[in-house]
């Protein structure tokens, strides 16, 4: 029996392959666009790469393009965010996976999903109009500025708790029952089972969750654009206002921006930097899962 030619099938398969290729094209597009515009920026003769990576001043008006003030603010807000989200997220994950009754879990998981589904601009609103006044009343209005990195960081923390909690909980739940029962059989308490047996067994998944959450915190935009303040400021004090990489991109592109100006090209260089960081973090997290996953029968 000879195989009948089916042009329709071929066309459909071609279309489906195209759909799959769109994602590759997207990545290529991102890389090409960012690299090309950044080349224009670095090729403009106004600065060199060394200055970009070592400079401590970002003032496009006088031709100073040092990434450190912006990068430092990104680091501070992400660090504060992780400081909030890491302990809380892990505790929630352990509670959900090891302690919670099915009923409690049925209530708590949707709460986490709601937290994860709230748009980030809403967290920005919350940071500026609730967390900031709270910080100012606790630490004093002369210490905490109206726009500050701490409140943005805390809001970022709340925002990534669901991410850490649900990814870690998946990893914890995947640990086989037999491991827990073995530990109980040796006389371990519930805490010892959770912390000394289950958590180490799920460590690769938890580590991946933390890395993904870090990448999310670094790339978070609206919260810092609203609450962290405008204007680059090289400082480690979380109570001061400072502009992050993402915040700067939003502020610059929100104004009237003329194509091929140095401002326009500079935000692409910043975006490339951001893309590389988050891309590397995501790849590391995948590698961690693949490399250190404990496989159980």
């Amino acid at each position, binding site marked *: 029996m000879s195989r009948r030619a089916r042009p329709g099938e071929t066309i459909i*398969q071609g279309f489906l392959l195209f759909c799959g290729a769109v994602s590759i094209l997207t990545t290529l597009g991102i890389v090409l666009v960012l690299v090309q515009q950044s080349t224009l920026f670095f090729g403009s003769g106004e600065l060199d790469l060394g200055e970009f990576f070592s400079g401590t001043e970002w003032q496009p008006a006088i031709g100073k393009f040092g990434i450190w003030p912006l990068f430092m603010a990104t680091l501070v807000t992400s660090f504060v965010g992780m400081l909030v989200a890491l302990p809380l997220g892990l*505790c929630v994950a352990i509670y959900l996976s090891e302690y919670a009754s099915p009923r409690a879990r049925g209530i708590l998981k949707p709460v986490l999903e709601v937290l994860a589904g709230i748009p980030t601009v809403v967290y920005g609103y919350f940071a500026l109009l609730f967390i900031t006044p709270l910080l100012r009343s606790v630490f004093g209005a002369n210490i905490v500025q109206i726009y500050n990195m701490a409140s943005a960081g805390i809001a970022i923390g709340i925002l990534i708790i669901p991410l850490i909690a649900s990814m870690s909980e998946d990893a914890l739940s995947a640990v086989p029952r037999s491991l827990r029962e073995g530990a109980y059989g040796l006389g371990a308490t519930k805490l010892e089972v959770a912390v000394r047996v289950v958590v180490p067994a799920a460590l690769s998944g938890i580590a991946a969750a933390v890395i993904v959450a870090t990448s999310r915190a670094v790339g978070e935009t609206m919260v810092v654009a609203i609450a962290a303040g405008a204007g680059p400021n090289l400082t480690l004090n979380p109570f001061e206002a400072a502009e992050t990489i993402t915040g700067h991109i939003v502020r610059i592109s929100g104004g009237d921006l003329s194509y091929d100006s140095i401002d326009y090209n500079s935000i692409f260089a910043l975006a490339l930097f951001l893309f590389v960081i988050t891309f590397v973090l995501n790849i590391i997290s995948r590698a961690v899962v693949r490399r250190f996953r404990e496989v159980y029968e």
Partner: protein
Amino acid sequence: MNAACAPPSGVDYRVKLGEEFEQNLSSRNRSASIWQLIFLAATIVCVVALLTLLIKIVNDAFGTVAYQNEIDPETLLRSVGASADTTLADLPKEALAEIFQANVSAGLFRRYNTEKPFEERTQEEVLALVNERVVQPKIVKTWGLFESLLNRGAIEAQTAAIPNATLEFRSWVSAEFLANPQSPEPETAGARTAIRGSLLAILVTFLVSFPIGVGAAIYLEEYAADNRLNRLIQANVNNLAGVPSIIYGMLGLAIFVRLLEPVTSGVAFGAVGGGETSQNGRTILSAALTLSLLVLPLIIINAQEAIRAVPRSLRQASFGLGATRWQTVWNHVLPYAIPGILTGTILAISRAVGETAPLIVIGASTFITVDPSGPFSKFTTLPIQIYQWTSRPQDEFRNLAAAAILVLLVLLLTLNAAAIIMRNRFSQRRVS
């Protein structure tokens, strides 16, 4: 531990060890229960954070406002000789017109008169004009819901210090808020343009991303052989899901807004530049294409899971009857997987509804009063409107932002509820 390591001679140390075990056990149990409390407390903190966020928004979206009138209505009433216990609304049209003429410049009066003579206007219309142009109520101070309910006395005391101020309870989310276009005056500003912009952008995003996303998922699950290219596509989809949204904004800015400007501005299709079209690439279409790229990885991953859940036997039965691959997919796999695919797509789309950063980067207009009419219109969306209102220093704009947040959350809730209902409906049908 010491006792176990260096037992004094002549003592039966097993007894000692037993005691120590008892002691240890109680301290182990204590730390276990303490930590259980800590884990529980962390979970409660998260729930409280969510509640605080919602309460804060509700608190800001309703509350007392103090209006201050440019000219007090009583003065106006006295000027036409009406008694003090009547209000402006009780006056006949002629008296209102007289008040209007007396209190605005002659030029302004003539302009309104040529627009539509006062004889032809109804009493309500003239009253509205008097309110808008003469009385000019301005919001001078606002209070949150809880303060309004619990601390009325303090609010009244504060208001007493403001001349000509009247207190009124105001729900910032109201029919007017939904129906009015954006305005620089917080008293009359609404979110209609933003809501329409959001809905239109989402519709186009869905139309673009759904077929491509499902197509890619079908390709990866049903067609792709396990070769290098397909592994690359799969890894790439997973990586794209982790790219910050603002990067997609940069991509959209460079490709859709700038490079494809003739297409996205509609010039290539002969769209004429009217009031609402922008004649550059900063249109609904650019926004929707950018958002499509942003949600594609999510749609693909969700659809893949739904397709993977289709039992193998279904496909084998279809192949066994001589169906081609596409016939199998179209007639058997997709109908089985469609509830899961739709649910996943709606969840992905609802992420796009709340996206702000990429749209700001591609240059959504922050201030437009004309409704978007099609894919080539300039636009604003709800999250952008929220961002813009939040960034203004005046309290009344923050109240507007809170109202817009409520609208946005209701929209998201509706989408999610739709996803859940759809899932339940389809799965019931399959059982019966």
